[in-house]
């Protein structure tokens, strides 16, 4: 077992913290029994902002909905300690702030393709002047939004209307003095009420031939990347008509195509580093300093070839569906169909640890392939303190793993008002033997449940609050929030 006292590993020295007790905290857009979910209402992206005071969701209908923290803010410094020592923490509470139509359905006439309005990703940008900024993207076009509380203004006290002015105003050879002084500037009355107004500041179009799967801000505050299946482009936030291609994996002949880009993210602090994952299960770290075109990676993270049996599905389930850097940028979380993996960017021999998410689905891969579920792209997220990670599953379940060394925490929750309903206590897992072996088989409890698994209700999108133990996740059209 990896030593828990190894100073190299994750945050929080000392023993792993005790498992968290998750509680339901809020739900938005809850479905009543028997109500059918409209496809356009399905949530397709979730993202907390850097402070954790705002949450944005995007849906298949091209809308972005913003939520704002409504409970009194705590002094953030002490907060983390409070959680660690398992004090009762006040529940974070969010309230609906505003929503706006970010993208509309469009049609590419050159290629005769419909462009869906579905929001693929949302990323928050630097706040300025009390306004919120975010990037949203669908398959083709990225947009930069500003949301600001605007006071309602009313204009009164307008100059006299023309008839009056003409009647007595125009005397030949200049205007009588009395009339000049009668000129008045409009008086603007500002009411105390204010309402959030969203405004599209910039549109970054026509840079992607394939579908955009990721956008990510750079720590320099002025650039961001957008990634599609074959290329990654670098943009300046202020320049919308020009982007630089920094990665291009398109082979000379499309027949030779064997690998596509599935996700990309900037390093949280190093402006020159970014990671992208591929459909073959590898993650590449590239250094923008090395060259203008980063087709050659500076580091490659792959699961070492196991001698184990390869099947038709091996490659499909290896495809990485999401990657996330932990806050300090040393660790990287990745999700593929069956597992969640934690990587140390200083160690490219293999993942630090592997967590089985879907082990029980192994015998069912054939069915999953038949109904296309095997291509579902589950997201993953990591807590602000880097101690835990979460990822989604079927039947609106999601799982939280303790990722610090020595932690055996594994919790399965259901996105409902009663998250622990399905949770069968998991017997403590067999200890890990080295990091390569993964975490062994999962508890039969969940396995027993899996017959009832519902492949149509899948929990793909979820986000961890940046500095609290609070998770927001999407079940269909509903946004569930849990805290511990």
């Amino acid at each position, binding site marked *: 077992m990896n030593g828990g006292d190894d100073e190299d590993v994750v945050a929080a020295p000392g023993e792993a913290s005790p498992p968290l007790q998750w509680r339901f905290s809020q739900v938005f857009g809850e479905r009543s029994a028997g109500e059918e979910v409209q496809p356009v209402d399905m949530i397709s992206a979730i993202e907390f902002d850097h402070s954790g005071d705002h949450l944005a969701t995007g849906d298949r209908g091209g809308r972005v909905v913003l939520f704002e923290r409504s409970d009194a803010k705590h002094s953030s410094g002490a907060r983390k300690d409070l959680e660690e020592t398992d004090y009762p923490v006040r529940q974070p509470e969010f309230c609906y702030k505003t929503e706006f139509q970010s993208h509309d359905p469009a049609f590419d006439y050159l290629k005769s393709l419909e462009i869906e309005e579905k929001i693929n990703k949302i990323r928050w940008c630097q706040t300025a002047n009390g306004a919120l900024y975010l990037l949203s993207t669908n398959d083709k076009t990225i947009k930069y939004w500003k949301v600001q509380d605007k006071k309602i203004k009313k204009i009164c006290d307008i100059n006299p209307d023309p008839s009056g002015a003409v009647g007595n105003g125009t005397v030949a050879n200049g205007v009588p003095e009395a009339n000049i002084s009668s*000129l008045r500037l409009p008086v603007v009355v500002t009411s105390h009420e204010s309402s959030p107004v969203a405004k599209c500041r910039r549109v970054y179009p026509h840079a992607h031939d394939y579908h955009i799967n990721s956008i990510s801000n750079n720590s320099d505050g002025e650039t961001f990347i957008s990634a599609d299946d074959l290329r990654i482009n670098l943009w300046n936030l202020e320049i919308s008509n020009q982007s630089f291609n920094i990665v291009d994996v398109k082979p000379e002949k499309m027949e030779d195509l064997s690998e596509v880009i599935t996700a990309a993210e900037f390093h949280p602090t190093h402006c020159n580093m970014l990671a992208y994952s591929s459909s073959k299960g590898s993650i590449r770290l590239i250094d923008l300093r090395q060259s203008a075109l980063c087709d050659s990676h500076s580091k490659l993270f792959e699961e070492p070839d196991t001698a184990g049996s390869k099947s038709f599905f091996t490659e499909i389930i290896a495809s990485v569906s999401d990657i996330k850097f932990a806050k300090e940028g040393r660790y990287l979380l990745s999700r593929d169909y069956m597992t969640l993996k934690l990587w140390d960017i200083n160690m490219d021999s293999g993942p630090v640890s592997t967590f089985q998410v879907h082990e029980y689905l192994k015998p069912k891969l054939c069915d999953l392939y038949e109904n296309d579920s095997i291509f579902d792209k589950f997201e993953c997220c990591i807590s602000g303190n880097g101690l835990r990670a979460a990822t989604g599953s079927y039947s609106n379940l999601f799982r939280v793993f303790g990722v610090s060394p020595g932690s055996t925490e594994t919790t399965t929750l259901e996105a409902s008002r009663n998250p622990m309903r399905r949770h069968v206590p998991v017997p403590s897992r067999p200890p890990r033997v080295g990091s390569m072996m993964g975490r062994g088989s999962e508890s039969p409890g969940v396995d027993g449940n899996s017959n009832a698994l519902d492949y149509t209700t899948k929990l793909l999108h979820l986000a961890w609050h940046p500095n609290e133990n609070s998770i927001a996740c999407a079940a269909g059209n509903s946004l569930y929030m849990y805290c511990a």
Partner: protein
Amino acid sequence: MSMTDEPLYPIAVLIDELKNDDIQLRLNSIRRLSTIARALGEERTRKELIPFLSENNDDDDEVLLAMAEELGVFIPYVGGVEHAYVLLPPLETLSTVEETCVREKAVESLCRVGSQMKESDLVEHFVPLVKRLAAGEWFTARVSACGVFHIAYPSAPDTVKTELRSIYTQLCQDDMPMVRRAAATNLGKFAATIESAHLKTDVMSMFDDLTQDDQDSVRLLAVEGCAALGKLLEPQDCVAHILPVIVNFSQDKSWRVRYMVANQLYELCEAVGPEPTRTELVPAYVRLLRDNEAEVRIAAAGKVTKFCRILNPELSIQHILPCVKELSTDSSQHVRSALASVIMGMAPVLGKDATIEHLLPIFLSLLKDEFPDVRLNIISKLDQVNQVIGIDLLSQSLLPAIVELAEDRHWRVRLAIIEYIPLLASQLGVGFFDDKLGALCMQWLQDKVHSIREAAANNVKRLAEEFGPEWAMQHIVPQVLEMINNPHYLYRMTILRAVSLLAPVMGSEITCSKLLPVVMTAAKDRVPNIKFNVAKVLQSLIPIVDQSVVEKTIRPGLVELSEDPDVDVRFFANQALQSIDNVMMSS
């Protein structure tokens, strides 16, 4: 300023439209802010209009941008320099908005207003403004602050100067990279106002902070400041403080930083003097010319001539020329292209013998480059070499290069070479042109692409200007006119275009005897498009030819066209007829 003599009502409308719902109307009102101010008078402008503008700053960026611009030249309307400070509050708020171009314009206007203000007003009003901006809650204010220090500093008392320097030092270490970038961008400007005693201490420590930033984007801008700072310092200080930094930067891990160094390096040569240039900068530059990253080599190659101009010829031949030879066969076409665009300029620097010995082979190899841009760049700068060694040595290789470009399958390449034909013709002389290029010029008139045909028509005109009407009469006009019988109407139209361009150059006589008959024949064309173009051409010929010719030939032709069954032909014929009448009336 006196009370206006403009009528009141339009002013009232302008004022009301400051708050109209239609952005175009608001914009219009802001653009005419000076008119409103004149109407209100100086005092009411100060007491009402300016405060009104200060409060209404949540408008669209376009309106704010216009407002920032207008306020920069508003001093006369508020009562002159002694009241200039009233303009500061609205500009201050504008310099904190989130849109960069508005902020930049507001800062520009702040500087413009500030530079006219009295010293005492600066201390009383401008310095506090700088401090407020620098302490702003949002990065936008702090970014703007960086751009106004150089106005506030010179007139501030010593204690305040010390404070301003320390505030700027903090801005150089701000949490937000945007602010550090702004500090780096403006450091040179600010440093130029700082006493030399503080340059070496305070400014150099700010510079050090910026050059060690871990954001590449900040270091990049610090590089840009190197040259400006270097020029402020004494040569020995520059050698001691700036040189190590730039040499370090030239080996930075980030190619973007090295790219900046490659762009800036030559500017530093003068600041450090000849000896350090030889021992430090030349090696650094040679490294950049051989950099791994093509982008860096592109930047370095693009500065090769400028760099050599500063060096003496021996150093250039000894150190730079070997690199230039390598670059001429670089694997990246963009590097070769950048080199080709400047290398001709090295000829005057190296002198005749060295050019023939060293550069000529490079020219010749670049002229045979597989990438058309490289060849084009060489050809476009031919005149510089011509002055040094004459064209003869090159012409053997030149012709195949030109012919190949002239027939390139990409029309943009053909277009580019056409643009250079007049230059080539003037350099190569009539003889060479007649033999080799004349036929090409005619061939372009029948190109498949419209832009090429149009450029070709223009080219024919420029050639006639270059070599004179007599030459044109022999070598151009007959060939051009012959093509009027081309079976395709689009080609015939090109010829009409060429005729209308040639006519002013050829003069009245040739126009009447040669060109006009052809046009008149074309008036009988079966294609309406040709016919109405004939009408247009005839109209353009009116001022060139004699009045009698107009009456005898052009007018009857136009009258006939004005009865054409096609409506467009009639329209243009009538238009031309009308212009005949106008000319007659005015004469």
